[in-house]
């Protein structure tokens, strides 16, 4: 056996080996960066574990469940009327929009149709919810990119919408207003004129934001060509809402899967953008706020007279059957698959929330991007944690 007897030679070999190991580790492991669970870009408590090579993301894996409340299980021990209270909290910025598809599914099973006036009120509140939701998005988008000004305007102007929602439903965030067979209350007097004023303020806000953000050179540089989703990939992940319309797919459940809402009675269009990048998704949302303003305007002008509740049994028992109803919520497709066995409570409710599908593309989308763009991409996908975790 030949042992290395020279002390200097031994030190040299050891140093070589140590160096090699360090190099090897650096190449194989990269650096692991934890984004969240508490990070302003995550709208709740989402943690993203990103493996980095320099500034580049090799692999990103969202870790969820910090906010999982088990609503699907809880719905099985609550009556149909009580479920709306729960589902209000799924996507907490567009609460009323969460109630509508569940109530519609229950109505479908019971064979009840809400009166025209109730459908109209539902649609108005639905669109107001969307305006409030996306207004905040437009402000928040600036914050994520380092422009702090827009979010103050957003909070200021969203308040007008929340006030209008509150004066009808009594709740700013959790209206719990939709009922099987109609809505809880009629509109208060003077509400229509006030809402029109609020809508005008939102229109001004849209113009303001367009100037502040969309016309801004830095904003364009940071969003154009970032996080590009080809239409086909987006569809196979089940992306919906502005995320898929920003990839040029002309798909909107308000138009394509009509439910008992008043969308067919007004004149509106679906906005799309062909680019599929962060800019396109944001731009589509901006146009959707404007479109919703015009929709609410038309709806307010055409509210039919009549009752706001249909004939509904006092104790609501839903006949045996299954129904899936989805609506186009601010974040995308939100649907409830309700299985009833004829009891007071649903037997099983599958909640198909938009953000869960929208976020499931993120490991694919974040691969190969740079760390600052991670924030841009997450902001432009626009998710609410309650909507992912449910």
């Amino acid at each position, binding site marked *: 056996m030949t042992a290395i007897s020279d002390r200097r030679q031994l030190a040299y070999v050891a140093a070589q080996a140590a160096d090699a190991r360090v190099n090897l580790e650096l190449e194989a492991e990269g650096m692991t960066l934890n984004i969240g669970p508490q990070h302003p870009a995550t709208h709740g408590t989402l943690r993203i574990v990103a493996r980095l090579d320099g500034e580049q993301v090799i692999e990103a894996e969202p870790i969820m469940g910090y906010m999982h409340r088990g609503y699907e299980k809880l719905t099985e021990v609550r009556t149909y009327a009580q479920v709306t209270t729960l589902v209000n909290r799924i996507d907490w910025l567009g609460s009323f929009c969460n109630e509508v598809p569940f109530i519609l599914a229950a109505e479908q099973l019971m064979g009840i149709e809400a009166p025209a006036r109730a459908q109209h009120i539902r649609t108005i509140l639905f669109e107001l919810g969307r305006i409030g939701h996306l207004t905040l998005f437009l402000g928040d988008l600036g914050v994520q990119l380092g422009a702090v000004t827009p979010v103050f305007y957003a909070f200021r102007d969203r308040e007008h919408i929340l006030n209008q929602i509150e004066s009808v439903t009594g709740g700013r965030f959790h209206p719990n207003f939709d009922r099987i067979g109609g809505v809880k209350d009629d509109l208060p007097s003077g509400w229509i004129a006030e809402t029109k004023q609020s809508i005008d303020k939102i229109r001004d806000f849209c113009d303001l934001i367009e100037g502040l953000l969309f016309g801004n050179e830095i904003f364009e540089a940071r969003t154009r060509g970032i996080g590009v989703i080809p239409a086909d990939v987006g569809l196979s992940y*089940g992306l919906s809402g502005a995320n898929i319309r920003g990839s040029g797919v002309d*798909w909107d459940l308000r138009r394509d899967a009509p439910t008992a809402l008043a969308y067919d009675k007004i004149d509106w269009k679906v906005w799309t953008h062909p680019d599929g990048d962060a800019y396109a998704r944001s731009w589509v949302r901006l146009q959707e706020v404007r479109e919703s303003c015009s929709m609410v305007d038309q709806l307010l002008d055409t509210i039919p007279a009549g009752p706001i509740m249909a004939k509904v049994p006092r104790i609501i028992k839903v006949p045996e059957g299954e129904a899936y109803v989805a609506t186009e919520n601010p974040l995308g497709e939100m649907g409830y698959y309700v299985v009833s066995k004829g009891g007071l409570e649903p037997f099983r409710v599958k909640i198909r929330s938009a953000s869960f599908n929208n976020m499931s593309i993120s490991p694919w989308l974040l691969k190969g991007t740079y760390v600052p763009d991670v924030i841009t991409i997450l902001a432009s996908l626009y998710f609410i944690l309650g909507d992912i975790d449910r």
Partner: protein
Amino acid sequence: MTDTTEVAEETVPDEAREALLEVLVAELGDQLIEHHLIPGVDLWIRVAPESLADVAEYLRERQRFRFFDFISVIDWLPSPFGRSLDSAVDSALEIEANGEAESAATTEIVRGYAGGETRFQILSRVYNLTTGLGVHIKSDVPDDTLTVPSWTGVYAGANWHEREAFEMFGINFAGHPGLQKIYLPGDFEGHPMRKDFPLLARLVKPWPGIVDVEPMPAKDEPTATNPDDVADPSSSDPSSPAPDAVSSDVADETPSDSGDAS
């Protein structure tokens, strides 16, 4: 084997869905076991578990069902815990007191549209954006293996949905690239969405709301469950509850947050 059950009373012709169903029945052959069509509403098909992935691929490639909606699971076992507000007694406690055989709790499994033979069923939905039609795909999950083919090779978005089904129901998806828990902590035991997994909060402390629906003393009991007993339709303004005293007992039994403002 292929009977179209019509549920809607007045038959609305639904040519698009009927045509689609005809094509599916013809081309899928034995893979399609049963189907259910409600005209103007929706379409359900039930396929053999082993051909689940093939059917997905066929739907995506040949029928242009490009939009993946969701995958989930239905556990058809009736809940053994009797947390339903329907039952006057908690059957879990009853079983404890009277022994398994004498309890009134039902264990018969009744399945929904398009039938089925097993306890667990996969439920998924895809859309064809050109025609705007969606279809529900159900499939039995074999009771012994609890394994079905994964959709991840066909629809990339199936990944997270299958992970959720895996942790919540304990269903395995053969061919899934990383079947790990998605919400729950790694050392969590059990599958919470299964019907025989107790909602512990309810067992520890009974739901306070259950007090509201306990049977009222004697006389009005039949009225409460009579489906013909509906809200007064003429009261177009429900903000003011109907003042008639007859309904007051019934209203008491209604959960506090019912359809009518009361």
